[in-house]
């Protein structure tokens, strides 16, 4: 009888203890480092993503440290070092980091209401450029460096599909996709490589008369910017992070956080979502990732 009571008592007390212990094991976890690629300046990145870091901190009951770098090289060094537990970057960065360092994607952006994004080449309507072949020998401004998925890789893919190889046109690089479109509007180049909804952006509309521009070519729709977790992160934690980030859309506070990040919502993502990106990267950069 006593033995039974003892067992029962033990069982009764063990469960809470186990739960508490389990909880304590989660809440007492080490801080996580959240890295965001330097798409924007450090200050802007901080202000945009700090609310998310705080929300994750609260949800995960652990400190989330938001880290920014002044340039991409520095950022990539940290990615290569697996310094980031959670990292947000572009599609190329993901497939490369996944290939080289084992990062796993958890969510992907929905921006301006678009789940997917395409790369495109834009020209002025009065430029007399009607096909991609007309760009042979012309100057094209890309809205990012060679690693910019939508601003360089996708538009270059379009050019390759049209038979234009490196050397068949002049490449120039703007600081950002909007600036590439603006530069093309002001005739600094014949065409701009950028994302497919650039002409809808308020910042672009403010600078130029978008009615004078047109999309010469647009690629297939591709998955948006991903968020990935370190290879070493547990699936449980990764899932929790994913859940927290996806659920932001369901609360007002979460929506505000998303708005601060200039993101509509976050969707769960899998590695297979980026298969097309791998194919295209192989064609453009010659990298089999």
């Amino acid at each position, binding site marked *: 009888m006593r033995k039974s009571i003892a067992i029962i008592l033990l069982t009764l007390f063990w469960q809470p203890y186990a739960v508490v212990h389990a909880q304590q094991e989660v809440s007492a976890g080490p801080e996580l480092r959240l890295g965001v690629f330097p798409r924007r*300046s450090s200050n802007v990145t901080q202000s945009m993503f700090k609310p998310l870091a705080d929300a994750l901190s609260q949800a995960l009951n652990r400190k989330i440290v938001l880290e920014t770098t002044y340039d991409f090289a520095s950022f990539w060094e940290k990615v290569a070092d697996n310094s980031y537990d959670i990292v947000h970057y572009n599609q190329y960065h993901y497939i490369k980091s996944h290939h080289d360092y084992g990062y796993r994607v958890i969510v992907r952006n929905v921006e301006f209401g678009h789940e997917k994004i395409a790369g495109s080449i834009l020209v002025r309507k009065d430029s007399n450029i009607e096909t991609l072949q007309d760009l042979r020998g012309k100057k094209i401004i890309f809205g990012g460096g060679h690693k910019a998925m939508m601003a360089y890789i996708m538009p270059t893919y379009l050019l390759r599909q049209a038979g234009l190889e490196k050397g068949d046109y002049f490449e120039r690089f703007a*600081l950002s996709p909007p*600036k590439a479109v603006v530069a093309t509007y002001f*005739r*600094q180049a014949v065409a701009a490589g950028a994302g497919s909804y650039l002409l809808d952006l308020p910042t672009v509309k403010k600078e130029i008369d978008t009615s004078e521009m047109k999309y010469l070519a647009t690629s297939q729709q591709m998955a948006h910017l991903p968020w990935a977790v370190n290879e070493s992160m547990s699936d449980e934690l990764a899932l929790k992070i994913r859940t927290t980030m996806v659920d932001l859309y369901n609360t007002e506070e979460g929506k505000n956080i998303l708005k601060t990040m200039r993101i509509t919502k976050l969707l769960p993502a899998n590695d297979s979502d980026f298969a097309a990106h791998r194919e295209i990267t192989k064609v453009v950069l010659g990298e089999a990732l």
Partner: protein
Amino acid sequence: MKFSPVSFLEWYATISLKQRYLNATLLFSLIVISVAFYGWRYVDQVSHRQLIHIEDRADASGAMQDAIDQIHAIETAFQIFVNKPDKKNEQSISNLLRLFGSSIERLRSNKWIKQDSSLTGLVISLGKDKIKLADASIRLIDVRKDGVRWIPAMYTVQTRMLEHNVLFVTELDFNIAEVSEALDTKNKIRVYKLLNELRHSWDMMIGEFRLMLSIKFGAFTDDQELGIKSRRENVAIYMNRIDGLLVDLGAMGRRDLVDNFSIVEMRRLFYIWSDTYDSVLTSLSSENWRNDAVVFHNEVQPVLNQIHQRASSLQLELSVATAKNITNLSILARDLSNFVIILAISIALASMLGYFIFQRSIIRPIHQFGLALQSEAIGKYRTTNKYMISKAEEFRDLMKAFDDMREQVRTRQSHLDHMAHHDSLTLLPNRVLLRDRLGLAISRSQRNNTDVGLMFLDLDQFKQINDSLGHGVGDQLLKQVATRLQECTRDTDTVSRLGGDEFAILIEGVTDVDQMSKMARKILKAFSIPFTIGNHELHSTTSIGIAMGPSDDITVDALIKDADIAMYHAKDLGRGNYKFYSGEMAAYVAEHMVMENQLRHALEENEFFLVFQPVVDMKTNQIVSTEALLRWNHPHKGVLEPGKFLSIVEETGLIRPITQWVLTQASHQYNEYKKAGFENVRMAVNLSGSILKNNSVLDVVINAVAQTQIDPNSLIIEITEDTLLEDMQGAEKSLAILKEMGMHIALDDFGTGQSSLSHLRMGSIDIVKIDRSFIRDIPGEKNDMNLVDAIIAMSHKLQMKVVAEGVETQEQIDFLRWHKCDAIQGYYFSKPVVGSEIIKLLLKDKMRASG
């Protein structure tokens, strides 16, 4: 008062044009100034902004270009340093990096850069790139300066391979020298040959190896890979040969044909050299055969590329900003052009509106005002309200002034009309109005089958009254005459003054000639009552001429002429008579006009001649003077006396030349007297009143005296009383001058004119000639006798001589002699005769006197 747009407009329409246009001008000026100010401010702000952007961007562009130039220079410096890693080139890199840093600082502090966070980030990144580049350049410099790290293979070559090469060659040369001293055997010779061959092969191998090194550093061949491959193959060949030769020599050494130890040593050195050669070859074949290139490629070049890309991005932004500025300035220019066009159009519209308003508020009212004036000018009266287009104060004032002026004009016009049709003194209708009424009256009389009676009245002796009592009295007399005439006539009759002392009365509805006679008598009776003017009681009569229309004539002019003629004839009848016009009167007038024409030619045709009537002194019975009397030898009527034509002469102005002629002829005749010895016989000449009026007599007499050289003392100037009545003061003056010249003055027809006694007061009269009318009835008529006696006595008292005219009987002579008349003239002694006859009479007289 409730404000409403309508009431405002009504009020606005009444304010003065000056105020209205002042308000409009102020408002327009305010608007133009405001618009211009706004436009200027807008242009100024935009252009200022653009200029600042341009300035800032130009500065950024300059700094960016400097940075790019420095980067290019740094790249060149790296290349130079790699080729020649001396202190100077190293310092050059350091200097250029410092300059590059200063360019980046300039960019960092640039305002245009600062206003864009992405550009600021870009410049910050450039700064960090610069630091990276500096670090990389340090590493590059270190590697390059360090011979061991620069090209590791070369270090091995320079140390181990060279050392072993030298050792090998030394050993070999030693053996060659030793063997060459004793070439006494065939084997020794063979050893010698082997050693030499070894020497040659070694040299060739080293040569090929060195050549390969040279090719590796870029000398001698375009195809480096092929060149190196060839040299390697050659080195391998030579190495094989050397190896073979060393084996052969080893065999020889064991036979003591050569120093075996040396051969073994050479072999060892060769193997070390060949092992080292392999490692050198491996090192040279690797991608990292030059560490400076590795550092440059891995560390320096990426940073440079990054810098180039960032610089390219920044230049792109600069270009875009320039394009934006150009676009903005183009937009500004376009806006300015549009503004100018809009302003020009606005001003044009404002001008048109202003013209419209000006036309409506000023031109149109002025035009209407002009029409009003024109209407007034042509006599169409319209109320000013019709022309009151504008209610502005100025126009209201103008309209009021116009109305006032029109009223005044009408009043004056009316007054002028009245004055034009009425006599200003008597206020009676004048000749013009009379003619007008006469015409209407004639028309009415013809319709009504009645007559129109026209009376012409002339006041008798009015000139005498005017001259003696003054024009004031004369005017009063005329006014009273006008009143009396009006009292004598009906309201329907027209009493008018024709001018001077002539009046006319128009009587309509005459059915019987007696009506006119009665009227004339009534008028004459009215004139019988003296006119009291001040202290004067004047008796005035009038002569009335009456013409009847349409019986006498049916036209105004004809009827007037008929009445005038009738009046003329009434005057001939004496004072206070009336005469009806008859056809004969017209004939008389016609005859009068014919005679007038004939008289004009008479002087030219020498139809005038003088006759002379002697004046005989009563005491001596001698001819003392002769009176020159003018005669006209009329071509049809025979000889005419002055009475027949003198009035016409005086009317036509021929009196002066005729008088001149008479004086001259008379003077000539006197000269004949003088020639004949009768210089004491004076010549009397009659002067007309019209000559005596205005000093003309002086010219006439002086001319005659000058022309004939007659002694003025021998001339007697005879004047009548009537002559003096017309201008007594003037005549007195002229006569005084003539008297002063020496002439004698005789008053002719004394007693017949008015104011005879006053004439005797004139100091100029020397002789009084009693009119024949007084002598005619002597001695029968007692009054005449008394008068003559009185005249003689009175004249004598006044120291005047007396001559009696018209003496025809002895009785008259006796009477006159008894009453001591000085001289006589008349038919008793002689009728007027020609000059030659007078001479005869004078001679006869002289003969009689001498006995």
